[in-house]
């Protein structure tokens, strides 16, 4: 069965392309949230910043109570696959994606998939189209295994900015993936857990005070450090971390530090460095602001580091997260196959 909506609104296929700058760069940021506030003197004053070694701290981490046993990863594989024409005659991007989340659990040293969910979603700015056609489209997509997601409506004077709308469709799909990750959290909100990425998008789904949830950030998108901090960052040896600092955002305060997992063989200066986040309330109230906790956790992360040289992101990945990615990836349809199915359904 074909869905007529797309052809009725002048849909045409789009090839994969690199994101373009917004049409109107009028000072508006495309990011949803302003920069976070930071307190870099949280563990050490600026002048005392130096690398801290974590490799020799504490006893074995194997029987440590705080040892993470759950590992959560989410995935959003998709792109803008078509362009519609709005009632006003402007092109409107349509994003097709497969999104999912997985939990791997460490059962006495054996990693097992505890929970996984995968969904297929189509997102675009539905508010630019007649309500009755959108209603029928939502039902038809659902019958064919896709969910329709409404991307945030553009401001009225920006309805012709394709790139801005493309970004909104991607954000919507990403947000839905975060919702699936929340489902993964909800299975057991109390067990020590490592999640791939920042914690603030998961705020509220775990007990900030009692539950050690650790965020592992591979890609650094904000500049948190002062000049001395950056010097220390580049001086880090494998198994060393920077002093911890505090990041405050609207929904969650976290304690964070950089940790070098790998890179002593003449690699790039920023090779193998990840950022670690833990909820501030947990660290201060439950862990008693004990720096040994940060050191033990860091040491464990170093022990967990991926040694799979065939894996592109191995230097900034830990094995359980890599396994989670692989496990989830195996549940995804090949994007070309999904795309073919969608195009057939849309009559494109």
């Amino acid at each position, binding site marked *: 069965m074909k869905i007529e909506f797309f052809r009725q609104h002048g849909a045409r296929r789009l090839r994969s392309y690199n994101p373009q700058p917004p049409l109107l760069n009028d000072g508006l940021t495309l990011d949803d949230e302003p920069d976070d506030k930071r307190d870099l003197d949280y563990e050490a004053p600026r002048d005392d910043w130096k690398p801290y070694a974590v490799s020799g701290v504490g006893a074995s981490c194997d029987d440590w109570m705080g040892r993470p046993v759950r590992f959560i990863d989410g995935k959003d594989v998709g792109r803008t696959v078509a362009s519609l024409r709005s009632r006003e005659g402007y092109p409107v991007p349509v994003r097709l994606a497969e999104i999912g989340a997985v939990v791997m659990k460490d059962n006495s040293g054996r990693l097992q998939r505890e929970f996984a969910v995968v969904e297929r979603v189509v997102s675009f700015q539905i*508010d630019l189209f007649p*309500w*009755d056609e959108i209603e029928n489209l939502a039902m038809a997509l*659902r019958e064919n295994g896709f969910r329709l997601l409404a991307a945030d409506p553009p401001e009225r004077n920006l309805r012709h900015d394709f790139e801005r709308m493309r970004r909104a469709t991607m954000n919507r799909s990403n947000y839905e993936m975060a919702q699936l990750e929340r489902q993964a959290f909800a299975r057991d909100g109390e067990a020590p857990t490592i999640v791939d990425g920042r914690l603030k998008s998961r705020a*509220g789904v775990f007990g900030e005070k009692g539950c050690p949830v650790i965020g592992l950030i591979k890609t650094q998108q904000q500049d948190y450090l002062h000049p001395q901090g950056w010097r220390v960052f580049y001086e880090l040896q494998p198994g060393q971390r920077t002093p911890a600092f505090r990041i405050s955002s609207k929904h969650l305060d976290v304690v964070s530090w950089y940790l070098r997992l790998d890179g002593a063989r003449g690699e790039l200066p920023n090779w193998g460095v990840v950022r670690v986040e833990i909820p501030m309330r947990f660290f201060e109230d439950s862990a008693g602001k004990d720096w040994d906790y940060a050191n033990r956790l860091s040491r464990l992360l170093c022990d967990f580091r991926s040694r799979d040289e065939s894996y592109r992101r191995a230097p900034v990945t830990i094995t359980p997260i890599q396994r989670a990615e692989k496990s989830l990836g195996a549940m995804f349809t090949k994007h070309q196959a999904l795309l073919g199915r969608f195009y057939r359904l849309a009559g494109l």
Partner: protein
Amino acid sequence: MTKERLAEIQNSVAEFYAEAEIPLPTATRCVSPLTELIGGCSLTCTEISELSSRKALNFLLKRGGLTRLPQVLNDEPLAGFIYASRNFGSIFVEREDIIVRRRFSIAHEIGHYLLHFRPLLNSASNEGDWFLTESLDKTEGADTEDELSPKGQVSAGESDDLIRCLPPLETMEREANCFAVELLMPEAVVRELAERQINNFLRDDDLVWRLATELLVSRATMRFRLRELKLFPIEELRVN
């Protein structure tokens, strides 16, 4: 609202489906098919930008739905509008509103038509060119609970005879809202979906987000519905 009146409204929703010969929504086919329902009754629905009663009635006049313009029209911006005569009902909705708002406005106007206008017009004397209109005011904000307390105005053109036979305006507005909620978020469907999802979420807002997306309604109305059905907060659902 009394339990009896609520049951009558729920019955009206069921009869609306029966009249259009459409099966009731289920958890797997959960979006209420307003398009099909409207098509199955003597109703039409039109989207108009910068909707006002003047624009709506001018639209009908141009298309032969009216022979002359009633005097009760103005340029006040509206979210929804209905013109109901003995033979048909024409619903209008603000085209620039977000989809979920448009659907709520339409469901609200259908509620007026089935609960208040059609029964009265059918019982009115055959003599006279009777009609009733209702204007649903625009609310501030796209997804707020304001849309659950919409303010409207009912008019019967030059004759006040019909108006006197209708319930008080506030009662009608409350009932039209109740109808819209029952139509867009049927209790059985919401209950089943909420129970299916309960173990998937720890946060109330996440459950609201998911169900609102599934049923193509606003988060504000879904939050209201879950609270009304005592499925919110999530903790209460777990206890039950």
